[in-house]
């Protein structure tokens, strides 16, 4: 994979030494360089002192809330941030995403899940930096420059709003996009509460892009939070994205 050329640097901010240890081992086995911080203050300082490619932050830190860390880092940096949270806090997840976190992983989690999220966030970052116009998610390809969508090479006809919805999701491909963000981007801020718009258009969109709309593999639902464009056919999501970046 392309990351092995230059080892990406990950900053882990968590007060639990055992969590930091397994994350360090997991990341190092996968070719990352790991920096650790046990408190929010330490973490924020580490993020300013060293070049960091991605930040993993736990929500429950002893000295400050994880969301404060997100807010403080976001005030001067666009570095991808992934939050570790516990379940039953959908409202909190939405707030974190709106504050600028790129994604979240629910505790307890497996290392593979976290690595997948990290790779997606890193890829998005590099795509944003290179101005890459095409996003491929499994059999679906969205050419953001040409405003063209193809499924297995066949051109799809989408309505303007369907395309806009897909476009916003594609810009964040792999990461979850909140309902509010989608509603604001597609229908404008006056429709921020109209989740039914989203439900109806997502349904229409799935009829066109999903091989089986009843069990979607491309446009995934994150209940209570938002949607994610992510091919879950197998562990192919990231390689598929990688090939897309090379051929345009």
């Amino acid at each position: 994979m392309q990351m092995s050329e230059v080892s990406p640097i990950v900053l882990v901010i968590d007060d639990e030494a055992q969590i930091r240890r397994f994350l360090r081992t997991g990341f190092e086995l996968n070719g990352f360089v790991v920096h650790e911080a046990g408190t929010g203050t330490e973490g924020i300082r580490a993020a300013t002192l060293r070049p960091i490619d991605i930040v993993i932050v736990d929500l429950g830190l002893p000295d400050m809330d994880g969301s404060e860390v997100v807010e403080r880092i976001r005030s001067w940096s666009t570095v991808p941030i992934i939050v570790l949270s516990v379940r039953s806090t959908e409202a909190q997840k939405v707030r974190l995403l709106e504050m600028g976190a790129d994604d979240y992983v629910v505790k307890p989690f497996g290392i593979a899940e976290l690595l997948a999220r990290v790779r997606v966030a890193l890829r998005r970052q590099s795509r944003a930096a290179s101005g890459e116009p095409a996003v491929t998610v499994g059999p679906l390809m969205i050419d953001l420059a040409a405003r063209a969508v193809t499924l297995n090479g066949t051109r799809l006809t989408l309505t303007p709003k369907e395309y806009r919805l897909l476009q916003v999701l594609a810009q964040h491909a792999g990461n979850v996009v909140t309902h509010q963000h989608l509603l604001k981007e597609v229908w404008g801020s006056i429709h921020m509460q109209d989740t039914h718009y989203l439900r109806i258009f997502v349904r229409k969109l799935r009829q066109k892009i999903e091989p089986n709309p009843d069990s979607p593999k491309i446009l995934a639902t994150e209940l209570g939070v938002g949607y994610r464009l992510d091919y879950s056919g197998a562990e192919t999501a990231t390689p598929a994205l990688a090939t897309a970046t090379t051929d345009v």
Partner: protein
Amino acid sequence: MPDAPKNNFFRKEVRGIALTLGLVAATTVLVAVIIWQIGLSSGTVAYLVPVLIAAIRWGLIPALVAAFLGVIASAYFFFPPLYSLHITDPQEVVNLILYICVAVVVSQLATRLKSQLEMSRQREIEMRDLYAFSRRLAVAFDVADIQSAIEDHLTAVMQQQVVLFSAARDNKRRNGTAVPAEVIAAVEGFAAANRDNATGVTVNASGGEVWLVRAVSPKSPEFGLIAINFGRHSQDDSDELRSRVDAALADATATLERLGIAHAINEAHMRSQTDQLREALIGSVSHELRTPLASILGAATVLSAAPALRGETKLQALVQDVRSEAERLNDDIQNLLDATRISSDGIVPRAEWADPADIIDSALERCRGRMAGHHVVLNMPSDLPLIHVDPVLVKQALVQIFDNAAKYSPPGSQITVAARARDGRMVLSVTDEGAGLSATEQPQIWDRFARGQRHATTTSGSGLGLWIANAFIAANGGKMNAVSDGPGQGATLAIELPVTQAAVPHMESDADE
């Protein structure tokens, strides 16, 4: 308007007397007509009719007025010499005296009858109030229930707006009754100062209303403080009302004491404290357990992918065991946390318009590992209506049902997941080919810690799953039901959620432009 009650009393009397006057006049005309037409010698006896009517309808004074007027009218209109109060015939004088005696006795009898009737009606109302009160007490579960029953009872007894304050209730949040800030302040001051004060304090609220704040019972502080709205009254009137309140409260307190309310309140206090302690304990223990579990699970996943273990199938299997057992433990802890959430704070759903298909898909995704050995069939139309629910809660309820279906049905059997809209309801059902339910098990499965006797030794579980699912669905205004043809015949567990078609929001026509 001051003196409202006194005013009312006089107005009622005056009205009675005025009506009596009319009645006597009408009788006079009637008697005159009868005498003129038929030629009867005297109509005095006819004046008993207005006396009776006045006694029954308007009370003693109008009745006596009617009797007196009857005498005057007879003497003036019918006894010679006519049109003079002078009476010549001694026989007529005797008649009149007899009439007066009868009239007075009749009016007294009639008014007594009337007051007895009113008293028994009043007693009936009181009995009904008391009955309703004791019935509410019988079903009261905690202190707040008892307090609100007392509040309503006192309101009924005193016919005034009554608000009860106590340590056990949230004094700021009153259901629908607006209590002026001055009264709240007085209650707080009163509670802090001196609880023995039985006379209480009057508060002039900003709206011009006069409130009395006092202890319900000086002897039993458990009953709390009471604030009574006297409305807009003068000081004199308040004094009168206060004595009425004293009497009513003495009665009410006697009732409360007879019913053993003080004991019940104390007991409910203790019960809720024990409950709170237990929930807090479960909550903190579960949280403490989950933290190391995250490390165990994470470390196991790192190990299973480690190059050192590649090809080591036996060690891999061990790591896999660590992982799956940790996941199971995590599920159990999550159930305990959910259970404490249900019984301590209650569930507050975050409702939004959700696609039932999304909820089912998320739940299936979550249970993919657990249901891997089963053949899952999905059966739903593509045009399901949207539902207004908390999708996360509904998903968690579904996960519990899937978990249950997978646990109690053999590997390789079929689990059918269906969704359909019917009669204004969305029904999500899960049918398995497993252990089924016996007639006795069927109603018990929703109970907390319910575990079927047949499975107690063979299948592990906390018995919380379906109880949690039921609570989550109830919080969304839905209900659950279970159908089974019997043990070994499989079971269908269904979630029913309301679909209010009228409430489904429409989309602006330019939404797709």
